[in-house]
């Protein structure tokens, strides 16, 4: 915790009050539009809260994936729903639903508070074991060491889940999905010129996040989310076509998970256990793996976004 922690208590108190208030409005809200706007605000404030707790990695993931990509997905689903479902207020719910939900949340929060208080001096957990093993991890940032080395199987399975989700999305699409090749698309000059400014900055930030992952907060998931954000901007500005399942797309999609499986399995040939990278090459393998994962995650997240509606945008 930084030295300014005590002078910032009014800020922290405001944050601590605003989070449950926004969450309440979100649950009690009457329209989808209102709920989505509140969801994005909640995510931004949550990532500020993680920053205040010195959990920069969590804050980056919350801002990039939990708020950025998810918020954009929700907005695009809302736009889809508006053309098909009547977009009035939600049907009235039984009045006790928010209360039941609130009760669950409050008891969950109390349980968490009890765990924190019962663990004593706050140093419980695995941070000492992680610190002791850092020298063998090949990287100098504890979060990256845990995610890609000590608990690598967790991340391996997560990337597999993302890959399967992207394949599920693709298989549910109409074959004629997306504008046909050569079809003239509407363009917006303002959107295009701002996108031309934002996308290079976004790619620069993504590159920094991958590079920083080995010694500071950052990494493949955050960088992938930023690149996917750039891709969605380009899709919205009609500068690129939505990715089809062509051979290059398949190669990009599977690059990260495949490399991960290969790296995880390689130690088996040397009669070690799964995911036991040799200490010397650990850092290099982890960096190459992060690069490949960034590419795959970016493409996977981009595939979640439906393309713009064209003239045939009827019911599927």
């Amino acid at each position, binding site marked *: 915790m930084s030295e300014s922690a005590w002078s910032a208590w009014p800020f922290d108190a405001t944050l601590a009050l605003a989070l449950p208030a926004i969450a309440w409005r979100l649950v009690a809200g009457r329209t989808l539009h209102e709920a989505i706007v509140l969801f994005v605000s909640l995510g931004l404030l949550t990532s500020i809260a993680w920053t205040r707790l010195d959990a920069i990695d969590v804050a980056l993931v919350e801002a990039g994936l939990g708020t950025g990509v998810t918020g954009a997905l929700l907005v695009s689903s809302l736009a889809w729903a508006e053309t098909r479902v009547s977009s009035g207020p939600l049907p009235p719910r039984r009045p006790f639903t928010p209360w039941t939900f609130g009760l669950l949340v409050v008891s969950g929060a109390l349980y968490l508070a009890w765990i924190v208080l019962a663990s004593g001096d706050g140093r419980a957990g695995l941070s000492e074991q992680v610190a002791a093993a850092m020298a063998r991890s090949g990287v100098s940032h504890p979060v990256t060491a845990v995610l890609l080395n000590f608990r690598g199987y967790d991340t391996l399975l997560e990337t597999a889940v993302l890959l399967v989700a992207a394949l599920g999305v693709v298989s549910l699409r109409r074959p004629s999905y997306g504008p046909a090749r050569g079809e003239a698309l509407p363009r*917006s000059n303002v*959107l295009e010129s701002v996108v031309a*400014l934002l996308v290079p900055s976004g790619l620069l930030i993504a590159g920094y996040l991958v590079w920083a992952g080995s010694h500071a907060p950052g990494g493949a998931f955050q960088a992938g989310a930023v690149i996917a954000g750039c891709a969605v901007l380009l899709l919205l500005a009609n500068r690129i076509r939505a990715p089809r399942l062509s051979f290059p797309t398949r190669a990009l999609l599977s690059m990260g998970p495949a490399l991960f499986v290969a790296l995880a399995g390689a130690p088996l040939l040397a009669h070690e256990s799964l995911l036991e990278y040799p200490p010397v090459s650990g850092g290099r393998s982890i960096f190459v793996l992060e690069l490949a994962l960034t590419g795959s995650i970016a493409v996977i997240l981009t595939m979640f976004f439906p393309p713009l509606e064209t003239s045939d945008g009827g019911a599927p």
Partner: protein
Amino acid sequence: MIALHLLSAALLVAGAFFFLSGTVGLLRFPDVYTRLHAITKADNLGLGFVIAGVLVEAHSFRTMMKLVFTWALVLASSSLSSQLIAKRAFDRGAKPWSPT
């Protein structure tokens, strides 16, 4: 040093004032166009003051450049989103307010 702290505090308070004005405008103005006008103009100016206030206290050139970069990105994206919202509203037939 005291003068610098005071300058920083004055800039931050000015920034907070513009954010507050923008929020009042967002809540009180009659239609989507005037509301967008209030929120983007006042908030971008407010953010400029906040960034300037933090710049005064920044310790390194790198931090300063990051702050300026942040401001530029927010300016670009907020002007873009306000234009998109206004255009969408206009295309869907939202009538501009007139004082009659």
